């Protein structure tokens, strides 16, 4: 850890762990309800559990992104954060808004629009909160000693995410318009600007962990985020097939969302290629696992499984079924949850000075949570496909079908238990690291054998052509 203000990240990550735990709890409540065990119905009806589950996901991921930003930006800008108290204020206010929103859900207080359930008055507080964050980070970047591509892409991602929250706050009487602009937030976040954030964190981690030249990695960052927007912006069309919007969205959405996996494929190939090229062994192996694992699982979950039901002919049947839940779980896990866990595993030893990077709980956390999540995806897939067949093809009544597929939710619960064991181990490791220590400020011994990002950038001109040759093949594929 180079700067003292990077310590702020720790508290964001600690909040992440707390929110993630709550998110899992609500996931279980829903899985049990799907099995007919809805004893909590009077206190936590399904819609409250569902809104809590998804909103907690969004909030903990955003908190993780913010934590990552607080860790990365000072280093990329080569200066302390603009204001540390502001960062703490922003974290606390974000949590307060989150807690109020969740309590509100249980009291039937919400806006009731999928993923944007937070009631309108709280929306304004979120906006103020995010403005604080953007201001703090923006000032740090602006007054920074250097501008790196990674830093700029990260900032642009965060800034556009804040901007894109606004279309979700316009009120429409026509339900179709409501949906149309709701997807501007939801889709353009997760299949657009969040990928900028994810790509930047991924690039940062790869620079740090593989020692591959910054110029090479950042060039690929541009290619990948370029592919993301090339496919992702018009790929929004896959939400506009069947909601009362013109027919041309069927082919525009189909065509461009078929291209969406390319960005994720590029990311996976890029991470693996950089991993292969890393000349030296970074001691923090676990973090490398999470980093490369993230790129691969993002491709499987977001890219491949997304593609599996994005074509209009298929989506006609799978739209609004558990098939979506199948894709959603692995996509969010692979693309966003894993990148946050990767930056946590990378930064924790640097902040606390405890080298818990190759211990058994850490390794087990990685494997059990991933295997558990793949198992959950499998359970959702079987349930979803059965639902599509019985309900959409054979025309059975919804509730009759739900009875038929209850058993798959038992399988889901088993896999989710395994997943939770993995997350518990991760949190155990997190706690074992202890608090960030001031002695670690300026101590770069843990990253000692690495080329300083500074030097890498200045030295890069000479060895660049030689280093970038192996990527021609990959480029053709991407």
């Amino acid at each position, binding site marked *: 850890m180079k700067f003292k203000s990077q310590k702020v990240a720790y508290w964001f990550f600690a909040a992440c762990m707390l929110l993630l735990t709550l998110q899992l709890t609500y996931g279980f409540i829903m899985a049990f*309800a799907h099995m007919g065990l*809805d004893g909590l119905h009077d206190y936590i*009806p*399904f*819609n*409250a559990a*569902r*809104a809590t589950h998804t909103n907690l996901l969004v909030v903990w991921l955003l908190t993780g992104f913010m934590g990552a930003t607080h860790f990365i930006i000072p280093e990329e800008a080569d200066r302390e954060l603009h204001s540390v108290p502001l960062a703490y204020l922003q974290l606390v206010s974000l949590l307060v808004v989150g807690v109020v929103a969740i309590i509100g*859900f249980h009291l*039937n207080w*919400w*806006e*009731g629009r*999928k993923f944007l*359930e937070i009631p309108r008055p709280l929306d304004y507080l979120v906006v103020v909160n995010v403005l604080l964050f953007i201001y703090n980070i923006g000032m740090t970047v602006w007054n920074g000693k250097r501008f790196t591509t990674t830093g700029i892409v990260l900032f642009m991602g965060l800034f556009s995410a804040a901007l894109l929250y606004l279309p979700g706050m316009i009120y429409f*009487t*026509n*339900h*179709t*318009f*409501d*949906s*149309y602009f709701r997807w501007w937030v939801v889709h353009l976040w997760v299949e657009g600007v969040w990928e900028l954030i994810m790509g930047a964190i991924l690039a940062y981690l790869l620079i740090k962990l593989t020692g591959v030249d910054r*110029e090479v990695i950042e*060039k*690929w960052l*541009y290619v990948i985020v*370029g592919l993301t*927007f*090339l496919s992702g*912006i*018009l790929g*929004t069309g896959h939400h506009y*097939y*069947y*909601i*009362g*919007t*013109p*027919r*041309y*969205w069927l082919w*525009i959405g189909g065509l461009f969302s078929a291209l969406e996996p390319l960005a994720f494929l590029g990311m996976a190939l890029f991470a693996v290629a950089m991993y292969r090229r890393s000349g030296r062994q970074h001691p923090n192996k676990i973090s490398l696992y999470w980093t490369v694992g993230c790129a691969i699982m993002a491709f499987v979950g977001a890219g491949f499984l997304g593609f599996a039901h994005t074509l209009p002919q298929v989506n*006609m049947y799978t739209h*609004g*079924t558990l098939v979506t839940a199948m894709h959603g779980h692995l996509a969010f896990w692979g693309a966003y949850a894993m990148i946050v866990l990767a930056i946590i595993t990378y930064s924790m030893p640097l902040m606390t000075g405890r080298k818990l990077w190759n211990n058994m709980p850490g390794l087990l956390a990685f494997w059990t949570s991933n295997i558990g999540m793949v198992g959950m995806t499998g359970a959702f897939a079987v349930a979803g496909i059965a639902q599509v067949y019985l*309900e*959409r*093809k*054979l*025309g059975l*009544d*919804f*509730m*009759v079908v*739900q009875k038929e597929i209850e058993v798959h939710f038992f399988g889901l619960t088993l896999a989710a238990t395994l997943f939770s064991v993995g997350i518990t181990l991760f949190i155990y490791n997190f706690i074992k690291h202890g608090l960030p220590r001031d002695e670690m400020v300026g101590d770069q011994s843990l990253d000692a054998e690495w080329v300083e990002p500074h030097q890498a950038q200045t030295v890069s001109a000479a060895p660049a*052509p030689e280093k*970038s*040759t192996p990527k021609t093949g990959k*480029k053709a594929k991407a």
Partner: protein
Amino acid sequence: MLSKSQARTFFLVGTLLFSVLFLFLTIDTVRQVPAQTRAKNITPAVARGKHLWDQNNCMGCHTLLGEGAYYAPELTKVYERRGAAWMDVFLKDPQAMFPGQRKMVKYKFSDQDRQDLIAFFKWIGEMDLNGFPPRPSRDLNAGLPAQVTPPAPPSTRADVPAPRPTTQPSSQAATRVGAAPQVAAAPAMPVKFQQLCVACHMLGGKGGRVGPALDGVGKKYNVTSLRKWLEDPQGVKPGTAMPKLPFTAQELDQMVAFLLAQK
């Protein structure tokens, strides 16, 4: 070989180009949606219904236009499938309609609220959704028994394509008027039967599959037992999935007479 500045240009130009295209398509969509969604039919009641839909986070369990959660039925065509009378009874007390089954929160909807929600669903059901939801390729619940009394037409709309005779979902039959003559001599099928009962029961091989088929029900029961059953299902058979339906005395008479005729 791609240089970093070329990669940056690719990113910036690509993003700009596709953002502009997206905005252009959005403008066109905004122009077309009112006609495609029959926006002229958005009455104040529909708008209030939408507000209720949002206020209670109905999307947290149901899907509408295929969007929402996957815990409760897809409601895009619910008006066509169930009809206003059924929905009104259901919304008063959802759990009473499906005793012992997956629960819906009992919201304290006023009479006006329920009418608003029904208006909202009616409007949603009339949108042009590019073919969604798909028609089942083999419908196990195909069709309803023909009725003699035409019901208050729940969805007689000029723009609905003529249903295909063989693969017709049960819901569509609500719009058909007396095609089969076999019940001509028997008491006429009460409107309420056609609005409520067929959601769960089959008659003549057509209807829902939640409760037992009602063919021959008149042979098994008599006036007293049928009346008692309809008045208080839980009293006769605790734990039954049969709801107590809000029939008037006259409707109850008609219903019992009709059921007794099902020999």
